[in-house]
């Protein structure tokens, strides 16, 4: 039976890990479990949950900064921010519903551990870009801090941002400090219909080259667009290309007209108001267009926008797939039939010849244990990666195997 450790304070977490380090016992690190079905399967007989480390420890709205203990649920943080007219600008993505884990269980530590950011990333940067500081315990049982609570800080090596995307394999974050942003006064969406993938991405990248500060640029091919729930687009039998604008009420109409003028060759868009826009883009934050199913596997592909449609087209030659493009095409979410290797060979081949990398998000545990979930590393990068892992966690106790086998 798996032993569960649930520290309620930072000192308790540190003493637990120090004890495990002395005993050289491996530990799986989790928050509330939102990410447990993603990534490789960590092998250990002890689970350490940060769920007991809860609460906002600092919030200065006028300095757009917040600190929170790592186990604090994201929805609690967002509620506190919304009450003061602010938000997490990078729109954290909750993988839970798409991977069969509970929705709403995402913790703020999990957000920075995975660095999975939502649609607004193209304008506001990633979770990593919004992180200012961390407190954490490494695999040696040492409590350390990096960064701080101020926006500009070049004091020493940037360990804080270096921990983002490390999936708890280097250290267990106990507290994170991050930048927040004002909630936009208003927003709207322009939805163009009927565009094939390559043309849609051409339209999206064209808008990203304008100074109109588009805060969301998504394209859903026909199969994926049919899954949209937003009433104005529900059941649509065509590809949908979406552009979001957010700004002051007094400025948004003028921006909309400029955007429409810039894109007039792509047709006349359906317009969604602020409320409709909010509900529509929430669908991407919970990946409801890629719902959980044991019949399919889900990939997340990072590439150049100009290569995105080619990659999806190449994969479609080998298997049925459903895709949607975020970040003007720089991010592809791709659903393929469940198979012994989750289509890894074909997906990775299609990506590698065009540039980028692919991460397997949803697949049965035995599949995630047998194929590379993260893109394999080049030898020289693997050498550095192993060195970094060893610097933080020399005995490989934290989330061993979560990202790469034997690491």
């Amino acid at each position, binding site marked *: 039976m798996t032993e569960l450790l649930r520290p309620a304070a930072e000192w308790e977490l540190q003493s637990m890990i120090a004890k495990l380090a002395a005993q050289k016992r491996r530990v799986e690190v989790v928050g509330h479990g939102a990410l447990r079905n993603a990534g490789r399967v960590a092998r250990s007989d002890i689970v350490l949950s940060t769920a007991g480390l809860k609460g906002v420890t600092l919030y200065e709205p006028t300095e757009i900064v917040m600190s929170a203990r790592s186990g604090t649920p994201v929805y609690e943080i967002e509620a506190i921010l919304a009450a003061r007219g602010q938000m997490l600008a990078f729109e954290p993505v909750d993988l839970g519903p798409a991977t069969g884990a509970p929705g709403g269980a995402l913790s703020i530590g999990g957000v920075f551990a995975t660095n999975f950011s939502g649609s607004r990333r193209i304008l506001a940067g990633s979770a990593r870009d919004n992180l200012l500081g961390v407190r954490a315990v490494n695999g040696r049982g040492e409590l350390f801090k990096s960064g701080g609570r101020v926006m*500009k*800080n070049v004091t020493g090596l940037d*360990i804080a941002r270096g921990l983002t995307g490390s999936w708890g394999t280097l250290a267990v974050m106990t507290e994170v400090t991050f930048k927040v942003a004002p909630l936009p006064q208003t927003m709207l969406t322009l939805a163009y219909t009927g565009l094939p993938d390559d043309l849609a991405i051409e339209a999206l990248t064209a808008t990203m080259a304008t100074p109109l500060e588009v805060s969301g640029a998504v394209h859903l091919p026909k199969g994926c667009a049919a899954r949209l729930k937003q009433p104005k687009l529900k059941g649509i039998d065509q590809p949908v290309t979406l552009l979001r604008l957010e700004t002051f009420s007094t*400025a948004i109409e*003028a*921006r909309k007209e400029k955007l429409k003028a810039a894109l007039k060759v792509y047709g006349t868009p359906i317009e969604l108001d602020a409320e409709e826009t909010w509900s529509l883009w929430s669908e991407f934050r919970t990946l409801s267009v890629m719902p959980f199913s044991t019949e399919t596997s889900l990939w997340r592909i990072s590439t*150049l926008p100009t290569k995105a449609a080619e990659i999806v087209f190449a994969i479609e030659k080998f298997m049925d797939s459903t895709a949607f493009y975020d970040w003007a095409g720089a991010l592809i979410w791709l659903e393929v039939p469940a198979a012994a290797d989750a289509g890894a060979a074909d997906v990775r081949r299609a990506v590698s010849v065009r540039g980028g990398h692919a991460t397997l998000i949803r697949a049965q545990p035995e599949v995630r244990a047998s194929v590379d979930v993260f893109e394999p590393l080049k030898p020289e990068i693997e050498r550095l*990666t192993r060195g970094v892992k060893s*610097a933080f966690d020399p005995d490989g106790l934290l989330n061993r195997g979560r990202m790469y086998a034997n690491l």
Partner: protein
Amino acid sequence: MPHIELPEPDIGVIRRRPILIEGLKSRVGADLLILDEDGRRAYETDAFTAYRNVPMLVVLPRTTEEVSKILKFCHENDVKVIPRGAGTSLCGGALPTEDAIVLCVSKMNRVLEVDYVNRFARVEAGITNLEITSRVAPKGFFYAPDPSSQLACTIAGNLAMNSGGAHCLKYGVTTHNVLGVKMVLIDGMIVDIGGTSLERNGYDLLSFMIGSEGQLGVVTEATVKILPAAEGARPMMIGFRSPEAAGSCVAAIIAAGIIPVAIEYMDHAAIEVCEAFAGAGYPLDVEALLIVEVEGSENEIGILLGRIAEIAAAYDPKTVVMSSGPEQSARIWAGRKAAFGAIGRISDYLCMDGTIPLAQLPHALTRISQICAEHDLKVANIFHAGDGNLHPLILYDANNPSEADRAEAAGEAILKLCVELGGCLTGEHGVGIEKRELMASQFSATDLAVQMRIKTVFDPTWRLNPAKVFPLAATETMRSGRAASTPEAA
């Protein structure tokens, strides 16, 4: 001054100079080397000019492969390497030692690729910051980080120091605007970290690299984001009767949901000097001046400046001036951008670079004045108010040893104050040798050990820019080659 301790040069290495010269000549050719003393003297210091050492030799590679050969040779011959861009570091980050080779990337200054659709530029590391923007501006793009030295400083140096500038409130600093680098490790291995796509695969090694002050590797190429330029931008000046009013106004602007592209603060002393130098039209009857710039279409700029003026009205400003057009905007910024030079005309000064939480601004300014008064010195304050990055300029006479000592002591006290108030030792200039011994006031021994272990991963023998960033005593075993491959926390 100078009081900062530098490690004793290794006489054994210096004696091997002729052999090292021959070795390097055979690997990369004599034309890349600067050997004569006059030539080497040009590299004896950076912009932290109180400290100087003539390096053993200087090498100016033109390609990544040459950098690789040079580093491999230095690694095999146990020679220290000081990477250098344009030498504009204000903290002694590029200061050589007499037993070291300076590797300067200034000849590697080409734009290799610009992709406007995918919005990135791939450049060699020796290109200047401003040159990138100059190259992409005709197509309506720019490279966002804008350090004051952007005309001269290189991207290599920007990466080393994670440079920012006045406009980073909205656009972030170097680490937010770089997608990947090509770099060379001390053993000569060429490594690509990151690439052209927005997300990186595996550990975020780029985060460790950016801001590491040339301690992990020598960057030879960078892939940077290019952004579409705003339709327009316009500043306004708001003069206040007190620092408290100015600080409260900044907080109120942000609380109202407006994030301007820049908010700059100048105290009375700085206003007077800058106005005398630049004739920017700064008000001379105020205690604090904010320069607030917003971007957007002409209509949006008008709306935003109007809202900011409304917000400022609650703090009883003495002056509110909205720039009427490009000429006035340029004049307003010319005064601010020339501030350091203008103050340099009237006095020697030490430029501090601490960051504080914005709410601490009035208290910090009061304490800075007290600290300088206690040391019988004057101070002028310039400040990136949007992000809390203070630049107190401590005025002193460099020819008066007592004043110089007092200035250094006051500077230390100010930086420690920033840490006590919840801030940090450096917001944009870096640690270098200048703040190396102060690191222990911000970080515990464990915090520092965590950082030093990363240095050791990339540079196991501590030959790249050693004796910088970390307290000298803490790095002695690694630098002397007696490591301890993993620094232990005390």
